[in-house]
């Protein structure tokens, strides 16, 4: 089992390495470089040469990659172009904000999705299922920029209960931020919860139809005991990976929602730095988002390994 974990870990590192290569090469083959995009129309002659010298762009690409990668490993992403500030300082608050948004959505969305999924499965084809499933399909299919806009219109403009867009400096404290995130969280949670609830529903229904549940019923196990002991552990196991992907998606920045609400998170930073052609930041974001995906999937794999007795013993026996 430890060997397997080690293998997954190494695979994750390899993935990150490849992602870093791809982002680096991608940025490299774009026409122009950091200097031309920063200097814009003044990108000629001495100014350009000075800039190239200052940013070290005159060294061959592979050497630059190595020194960049070496610095990244030590946690230093270099300087952003537009703000002329350290990328770490740019990223820090953004990551914090995205984390706040994501955690709130996770805390609300995942338990809700599980509960709704289980309810719809247990009351399959009955009233609770029909109502919840219909609502879920609606919130799944309405694109988030529409639902977000509607939310702003109703809650912020008509009712004037909450701020419609987030106009705060990037580095506000948590409590100042809190009222601002309610609407974005609702907008995100709607889609996320609906997706996951549908997944949980089908997984529970599948387990309910299995031979071992029929057996548990015929053994005389009371209904709720059967649900908690026999159904849920087996039905929720495959959900772990979906939950993990959702979390990674949330942390990686929910681009559209952040843009609609003007929320200072990672997602909006991606858009901003691309439109500003701030290539070092794009590069840094690429590697950070990849790390988030890789590490969350790694954790999900560990959890599955730990919770699934089938996998556990198979590995230890080996």
């Amino acid at each position, binding site marked *: 089992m430890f060997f397997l974990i080690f293998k997954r870990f190494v695979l994750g590192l390899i993935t990150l390495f490849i992602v870093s290569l791809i982002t680096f090469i991608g940025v490299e083959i774009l026409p122009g470089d950091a200097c031309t995009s920063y200097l814009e129309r003044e990108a000629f002659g001495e100014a350009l040469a000075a800039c190239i010298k200052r940013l070290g762009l005159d060294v061959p690409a592979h050497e630059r990659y190595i020194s960049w990668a070496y610095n990244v490993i030590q946690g230093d992403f270099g300087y952003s172009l537009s703000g002329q500030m350290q990328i770490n300082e740019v990223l820090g608050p953004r990551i914090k904000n995205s984390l706040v948004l994501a955690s709130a959505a996770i805390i609300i969305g995942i338990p809700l999705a599980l509960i709704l999924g289980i309810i719809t499965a247990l009351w399959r084809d009955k009233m609770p299922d029909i109502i919840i499933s219909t609502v879920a399909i609606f919130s799944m299919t309405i694109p988030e920029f529409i639902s977000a806009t509607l939310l702003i219109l109703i809650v912020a403009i008509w009712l004037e209960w909450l701020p419609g867009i987030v106009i705060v400096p990037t580095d506000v404290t948590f409590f100042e931020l809190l009222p601002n995130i309610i609407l974005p969280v609702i907008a995100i949670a709607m889609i996320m919860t609906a997706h996951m609830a549908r997944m949980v529903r089908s997984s529970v229904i599948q387990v309910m139809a299995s*031979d071992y549940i029929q*057996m548990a019923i*015929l053994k*005389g196990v*009371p209904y709720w005991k059967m649900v908690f002991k026999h159904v849920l552990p*087996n039905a929720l196991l495959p959900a772990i990976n979906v939950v993990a992907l959702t979390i990674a998606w949330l942390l990686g920045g929910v681009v559209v929602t952040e843009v609609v609400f003007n929320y200072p998170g990672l997602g909006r930073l991606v858009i901003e730095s691309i439109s500003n052609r701030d290539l070092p930041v794009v590069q840094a974001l690429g590697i950070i988002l990849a790390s988030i995906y890789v590490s969350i999937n790694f954790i999900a794999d560990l959890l599955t390994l730990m919770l699934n007795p089938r996998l556990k013993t198979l590995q230890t026996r080996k």
Partner: protein
Amino acid sequence: MNTNIQEIKDLCIGFKSQKGEQISILRNITTNIRKGETVGIVGESGSGKSTLALAMMGYIKHGLFTTGGECLFKSKDLLSLNNKELEDIRGRKIAMIPQNAGQALTPNLKIGYQIEEALKLHTDFNKVEREKKISELLNQVRLPSPSIMALRYPHELSGGQQQRVAVAMALAGNPELLLLDEPTTGLDVTTQAHVLELLKDIAKETGTSMVYVSHDLGAIAQVCDRVIVMYAGEIVLEGPVRKILKEPIHPYTYGLLKSIPKLSLSGLPDSMPGSQPQPGNIGSGCSFYDRCNFSSDECKVKVPELEYLSDIDTSVRCFNHSELISKTSEQKITNDLKNKITIDEILDLKDVSISYAKQGIIDQFLNKVTDTNPTVKDINININKGETIALVGESGSGKSTILKSIAGLLKTKDGYIKFDKEKLLSGDLKKRNSEDLRSIQLIFQNPDESLNPNHTVEQILSQPLKLYFGLTGSKLKTSIAELLEKVRLGAFYMSRYPRQLSGGEKQRIAVARAFAARPDIILCDEVTSALDVSVQAAVLDLLQKLKEELGTTYVFVSHDLAVVKAISDRVAVLYQGRLCEIGPSKDVYQFPSHPYTEVLIGAVLEPDPDIRPKLVAEDIVEEKPPEIGCSFQGRCPRIIGDKCRNETPPWQIGDNGNAIRCHINIEELKIQQS
């Protein structure tokens, strides 16, 4: 005192079709289960036997509903009780032993917990007593070291062990009635015989009534006192086991018994034409009318009633039952194989060994051999043109592995496979040329999985024809029609999808697809295991007819010794991927034989209550073949000591031409086994 523990009155269960029609699955079932007796419910798939068994617990599957009648357990109608009341009866008064214990045990819960759960629900034991009882139960079902067993998860046990756990779980509540739904189907022959023995002992010890649902008349014959035969949702015959199995007075039962291959008979069994009508498609007369050889005009228009004959304590649903015995005695069967075997060798397996172990990247790099104990080893078999050779053995014997290797789906580790005396067959499918691929075709066990559900029969059959012969247009159509003709299906089947066919029809399409390539060799991998007996007989008959017509060579893999005896000229017995015995089939089934063959033959269940299986060896499951010595040393009842453990046994040739690989002298074996 009422001696009936369960009374079923006029029970009807059905479902609503998409058009809103009510379609019956069970029609007017009336029967009683008496205290302390074991009743068998027999029928082919779709006869409603499992639905009936579940109804006996008050359980109706999702989508089905009762349309009439009642199911009385101790005068309480189970079908009108609510869930709470049912929970008190299920497991405590009536317990179920499921068909596939591997799937019926909850995967995330330990064995001990699942048994304890039943004890908690149905007894007043405290924690210590419960633990003691778990050990007792596991002991009672003869599982080794109960304390360790209780801590295992279901997937860590073998099929036979899982089934035993299911039995222990059912016994935990001390039920008065035990329902067994195909409890031994899917187990190896020796395991099956052991589990049946166990069930019989339990019935004797505890006095529990049992209802044993099965399609296997062999198993029914071993355990039951009384038998109910079901056909198309009705009871067609009911009576004492001897009466039913020895002198069946219903034409369906008669045909069913005839279609079972038996060790005591040679040649193919008689097959019954047609198939069971689907629910909702039952005509106005007797439901068996279409397939009956003894029908009269009356049968077509009038439904026969279940008639009780008090002199033989039997109920029968047939107008002509009194004449059946005299009519059937006139029928004689001569279905001996007429294979034209030449001495032309077509396939030669020389020193073949196959390994599933994957080399690690580093070992591959160093070119190091990691697996010194491959799954299949030292296989030497010569196959002549036109013969049928069967590979038999229990699961894990390597029989399918060898088949896959001949087909090119698995690489051989050592040795070679030669085709048509000179052509060496590559273990890599991609390196075989089109001609080699065409010459060897494979038919799989389960036609549901081997036929593409999104292709019509025409598309399925046109693929080999296009691929190997480049047929197109009207020529292609004619060829497909000819193929369908060959497997006795009309040309109108062309436009159908696999889901619109019955199990037997699907397997016929699979057979037709194999023959479409005009192969020299057809590899049959358990081709009849998923089929009902009457359909099995028809498919075997078809395979034999096609072979006689076209001179094809069959390599036939099966776990069923009786089927193998019926269809094959030569038999190779395998244990743990090693050959034990090989020879002409009539000789392999006679003594002297390899101790493993002896064990296998002993465990075969004949549909006759007077022939009991002989259990000579334990049904332990070995995960790996032993590194040295005889492959069967772990279970051999005739083991003679260290020689068997350390030395590979030599081949010995018997008087009849069968070769046995054993340390015991063949003359000695003959004396011991007679």
